[in-house]
């Protein structure tokens, strides 16, 4: 009971402190540069100053937290990537040099590209389709909850789930993996799915798609519902059918959000390793960059230099996406 009470008090305090920051700084800003009750020339000058400061007040906590929690580690990673395994001696680009000659790394890059091609596209696609379809039926919310469920299941749970799908038992045995049960009931020979080189990548991707579709669905569903209903009505009047409305009216209007979802999942794919770790740990040629990094960082004491070097590569891969986003943002701000 006491723990519960303490918990509530700490929660309230934490949230309150955060809200108070915004109220107080704004109040202070308006105090220091008053615009009410002073001469109007003063007021407008004050307003101008205040308006130059205010964005930074709004951004302040976010920038601070981002710097501490993300930018500082990035810098640290770059620094580490130029040092040896224990982070002591400077080794220049040796880690990167090692990397490009490492077969496993090349394998990971190749696999990562496969993942990047397949997962964001399919997860976004399914998310979009589901969001659009469930919107029109009375049990849509139930359907959505069910499809959302994989997201809510912990990774440990998910790996067991997929064990029960991909599990392999020898031919003639009772299969406990659903996939093999289906294959054998159709007369095929059971396969050890996750050990089939190349194809096993896709079996692992299925898991991530299965999970991430829920994410895409929720975000896109919010976006779809934000589309002005009247534009859809107009299209209906114009004689458009369901497909046409979907592709020509709805999708273009939520294009920005689709891009956001796609970007987010792409980046997530760059970082994905739980699935690979839990299912194969990169064996049978399923290694991906993030798992490789994790491997080097923490396995058996770790090699921080190489781990960080791989992390730097992962981060560098996001640069094109950043540039694309800068473009979008500037275009949007102009129009």
């Amino acid at each position: 009971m006491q723990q519960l009470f303490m918990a509530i008090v700490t929660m309230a305090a934490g949230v309150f402190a955060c809200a108070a920051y915004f109220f107080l700084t704004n109040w202070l800003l308006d105090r220091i540069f008053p615009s009410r009750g002073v001469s109007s020339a003063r007021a407008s000058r004050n307003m101008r100053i205040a308006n130059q400061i205010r964005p930074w007040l709004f951004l302040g906590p976010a920038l601070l937290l981002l710097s501490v929690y993300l930018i500082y580690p990035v810098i640290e990673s770059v620094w580490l990537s130029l040092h040896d395994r224990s982070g002591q001696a400077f080794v220049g680009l040796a880690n990167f040099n090692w990397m490009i000659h490492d077969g496993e790394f090349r394998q990971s890059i190749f696999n990562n590209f496969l993942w990047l091609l397949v997962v964001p596209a399919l997860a976004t696609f399914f998310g979009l389709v589901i969001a659009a379809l469930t919107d029109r039926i009375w049990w849509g919310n139930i359907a959505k909850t069910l499809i959302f469920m994989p997201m809510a299941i912990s990774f440990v749970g998910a790996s067991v789930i997929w064990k029960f799908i991909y599990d392999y038992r020898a031919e003639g045995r009772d299969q406990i993996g659903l996939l093999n049960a289906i294959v054998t009931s159709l007369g095929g020979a059971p396969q050890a799915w996750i050990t089939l080189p190349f194809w096993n990548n896709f079996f692992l991707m299925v898991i991530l798609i299965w999970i991430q579709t829920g994410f895409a669905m929720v975000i896109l569903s919010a976006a779809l519902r934000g589309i002005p209903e009247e534009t859809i009505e107009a299209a209906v009047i114009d004689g458009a059918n369901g497909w046409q409305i979907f592709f020509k009216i709805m999708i273009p209007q939520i294009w920005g959000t689709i891009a956001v979802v796609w970007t987010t999942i792409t980046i997530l794919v760059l970082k994905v390793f739980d699935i690979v770790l839990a299912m194969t740990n990169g064996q049978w040629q399923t290694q991906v960059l993030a798992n490789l990094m994790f491997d080097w960082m923490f396995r058996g004491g770790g090699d921080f230099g190489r781990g960080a070097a791989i992390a730097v590569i992962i981060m560098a891969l996001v640069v094109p996406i950043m540039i694309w986003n800068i473009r979008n943002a500037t275009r949007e701000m102009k129009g």
Partner: protein
Amino acid sequence: MLATKRSPLVWAVHLSVLLIVILWTLPTAGLLISSLRDKDQLAVSGWWTALSTSSQNLVYRAPGAEAQAQKDGKFVISGNVLDGANAKVSAFGFSSREPAAFPAGQTATLNDGAQLTVREDGSFDLVSDKSFEGDRGQRIFITAGVPPRFTFDNYREVLRAAGIGTSFINSLTVAIPATVIPILIAAFAAYALAWMQFPGRAVLVAVVVGLLVVPLQMSLIPLLRLYNSIGGMLGVPAKTYAGIWLAHTGFGLPLAIYLLRNYMAGLPKEIMESARVDGASDFEIFVKIILPLSFPALASFAIFQFLWTWNDLLVAMVFLGAGDQELVLTGRLVNLLGSRGGNWEILTASAFITIIVPLLVFFALQRYLVRGLLAGSVKGG
């Protein structure tokens, strides 16, 4: 809603949604059924077989010599091979080589001359002229049709684990502020990035996107070091709730800002203008116009952030610690799995126990993903 209810397309929609839902839930259904099954069955037969009566080969060990009774000069051990389970024996045997040598009801003569009868209802008699010896009872192999049987034992075991209540509260204490705080901070930042004029706006947006990629693992050591030195300086412990909130906030911020900014940038400019003309300051516009209108985006992000913080293990372990008092729910459940993580029955049950809270959150927040929030606001978009 449009008056198009009866179009044949609607059936196609229903069917395709049904299909997708089935595809998506099938794996989870497997987990659910597995969590209700006997743990020994998990590795032996597919979860879908649990739904129907199945013919199984079981091994039963009869009681040892101490259970024998003397009857008509013979020594008898009797009992029931099914232990009261609702099943039907079809065949039995006494050797692992021929486990189904005799149909139910027949009497088999064992190697040592004793006679074994197993009837359909599972009752058996082991009759011998000599006294039985040893406390290792006779193995009886049976083939029985076993109807579906489910048990809540797995759940009971998980829920009765010591400290689970504490961990539940710990998890909530971590997850709730770790959801609310980033939303608050990100919403302000997103507003500034979407609607305020200042130099470097586009670059900041891109930086936020770029930071999405920073692997969590890279941050842990430098941050914990920072925490330790700050904690040391202030004389407070390094692992506190505030610390983990901020950590989750930091890690969640890029996505929050990115999602919210995208949403906010799509709100009609006129509404903001109108508020501006009404004399509202940026702060007031944000609180009174933007926030209420951004509910769908806030709700969707809240769903995810809650989920991630709730399911998170790594960050909690590092920034909160793994001690008995600080353990979060996921940590507690993983610990139940034992050192070698093999108890699937625990895993399956605990997966469903952890999923409940996020699903409730999803359900509660889903109603904020409303349609037509902006309807009636501006004419002639």
